[in-house]
């Protein structure tokens, strides 16, 4: 239970300025943390490209990238290496980074919006809506008129549909209560998942079922440069908006009425958060399937290290989410070579135990104190 501490007398407090300067020191140290993570992300991106059936030196990765971008060729590499780096691995690694970053940031926003630490980007039924749409495309061949993009387009619309239904049903007397959002989201997810399961069990297309299951667990295989524009824009706009709203986000997790009394229009703000979160999540799910766990675990892991202030949690989650999912994808494509594992299998196997270990290390945090 909550620790009861000794109470200092009133007058003791006035003469000790140390704690305040400590606070400022932590603020001063924060840019270094971000810089270190940015460097780690750069190293991660580079190393991830070098790893694969054909090993490629880190320097060559950079040379190929520079030569492709600026036309200034220097060094020697084969055309095959260039194709592997530029056409296959780099887009894939970038997509993994974007999806990891986006889901981690949305996880932060969603947990604040519904003030519940168990919330994740999929709480509004977004992944189950996308999944049902994906199953309709893969197994029943619907929406073929979108050509090679039919899966992504259908998945995106599936997630938007689910989101709109949840938001509409959760409205009550003009307000969106967190509890109603969660309950409606969970209920709709069950309905949509039932639909997905029904179609899978009725199907006799074994190859199709396999690709459905693969998609449901998430994958960035087959990424192309052209896939990256939309998620980059979504992550950039979404994250910028959220960082600018860091103060209201803090107020919101401090309590609904606290936020109101601090001048936050909680109804309007929550609705805006939902739209931003749904936009990013919809894009991510459309491109990479429903990668689980990142959006739930990353925000918590980050909070254990930097506290709950969103000015720190958001940028750190962005970078940490990107780094994490790139390495997850490296494992996904190497541990059972030449087969691939879905990302969700790796995030579950590695992330789950890691998260529990982390939580037990820091027993005082995450509900260990009085609430």
């Amino acid at each position, binding site marked *: 239970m909550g620790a009861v501490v000794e109470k200092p007398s009133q007058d003791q*407090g006035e003469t000790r*300025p140390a704690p*305040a300067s*400590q606070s400022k020191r932590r603020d001063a140290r924060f840019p270094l943390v971000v810089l270190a993570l940015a460097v780690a992300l750069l190293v991660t991106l580079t190393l991830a490209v070098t790893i694969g059936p054909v090993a490629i030196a880190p320097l060559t990765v950079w040379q190929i990238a520079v030569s492709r971008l600026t036309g200034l060729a220097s060094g020697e590499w084969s055309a095959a290496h260039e194709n592997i780096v530029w056409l296959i691995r780099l887009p894939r690694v970038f997509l993994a980074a974007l999806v990891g970053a986006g889901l981690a940031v949305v996880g932060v926003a969603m947990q604040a919006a519904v003030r519940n630490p168990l919330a994740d980007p999929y709480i509004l039924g977004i992944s189950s809506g996308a999944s049902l749409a994906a199953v309709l495309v893969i197994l029943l061949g619907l929406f073929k008129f979108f050509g090679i993009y039919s899966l992504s387009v259908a998945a995106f619309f599936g997630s938007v549909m689910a989101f709109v239904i949840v938001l509409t049903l959760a409205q009550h007397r003009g307000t969106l209560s967190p509890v109603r959002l969660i309950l409606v989201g969970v209920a709709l997810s069950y309905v949509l998942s039932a639909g997905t399961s029904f179609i899978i069990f009725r199907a006799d297309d074994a190859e199709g079922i396999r690709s459905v299951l693969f998609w449901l667990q998430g994958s960035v295989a087959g990424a192309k440069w052209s896939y990256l524009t939309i998620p980059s824009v979504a992550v950039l706009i979404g994250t910028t908006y959220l960082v600018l709203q860091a103060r209201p986000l*803090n107020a919101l*997790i*401090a309590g609904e009425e606290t936020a109101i009394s601090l*001048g936050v229009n909680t109804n309007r703000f929550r609705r805006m958060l939902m739209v931003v979160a749904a936009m990013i999540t919809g894009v991510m799910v459309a491109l990479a399937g429903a990668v689980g766990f990142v959006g739930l675990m990353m925000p918590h892991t980050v909070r254990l290290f930097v506290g709950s202030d969103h000015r720190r949690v958001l940028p750190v989650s962005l970078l940490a989410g990107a780094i994490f999912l790139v390495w997850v994808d490296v494992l996904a494509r190497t541990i059972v070579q030449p087969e691939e594992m879905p990302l969700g299998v790796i995030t579950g196997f590695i992330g789950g135990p890691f998260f529990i270990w982390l939580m037990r290390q820091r027993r005082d945090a995450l509900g260990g104190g009085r609430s």
Partner: protein
Amino acid sequence: MTLHVEKVTWRVEEQAILRDVAVDVAAGELVGVLGPNGSGKSSLLRCIYRALKPDAGYIALDGDNVWDLDAKEAARRTATVLQETPGEFEFVVWEMVLMGRTPHKSMFARENAEDHDLVESALGQVGMLPFAERSFATLSGGEKQRVLIARALAQQARFLILDEPTNHLDVRYQLEILDLVRGLQVTTFTALHDLNLAATYCDRLYIMSEGEIVAAGTPEDVFQPALLRKVFGVEAEVQVHPRTGKLHIVFLPAHAAAPSATASNEAPASAVLVGES
């Protein structure tokens, strides 16, 4: 800062939780609102800090209707101390108090030295500066309450709303918190549970019952045994305490309430009354 509440009515599914409530708080006053559980105290406060929109009536701060102000402006005028805590999310004390600056900052503004100075002096004022780096969740009830008051101070509002600030606190901290609030010299409207604390600290009182104001005035005006019997359902004897010069209400247990029994200073009934939330 003055508060003017006129004919405020708020209904839930046709049932009036607040009915024609009128309240006035003059600049610098410490005014309390009392009433049994469910009498509408908290709903009234929530209407004032805009968590509830009344169905009818008018609430003005310094003459301006609170619903005509934008959310940030309303929050610059009114600071609220509630019993809400961040639950599963961890904040250190410094961050909790810094939140008080929220209504003063635009989206793009960063915290500057002035904000940090305000936080520091607010923490100093409530004696919590040594706790600045402590996790809020690990504090005791009294310490949490002091931090929340510091947040209200950092908010620099000239009107303070408190919702049962002494709830769940040990006696010593009940007195300490109210002494602190009294000493702030800020216009304050507070819901209270404990009649004796209200009599000791408040300039004026409103008594609520079933959504209506049933009595208003100084503690001497409102604390009449007949009213206490009617509103709170207790037999009580009201005395002037010889040392404080303030009213002292002694609750009489049913077996002692017979006319022959003399008032006892041990008042078990009061524990029941204030112990509930």
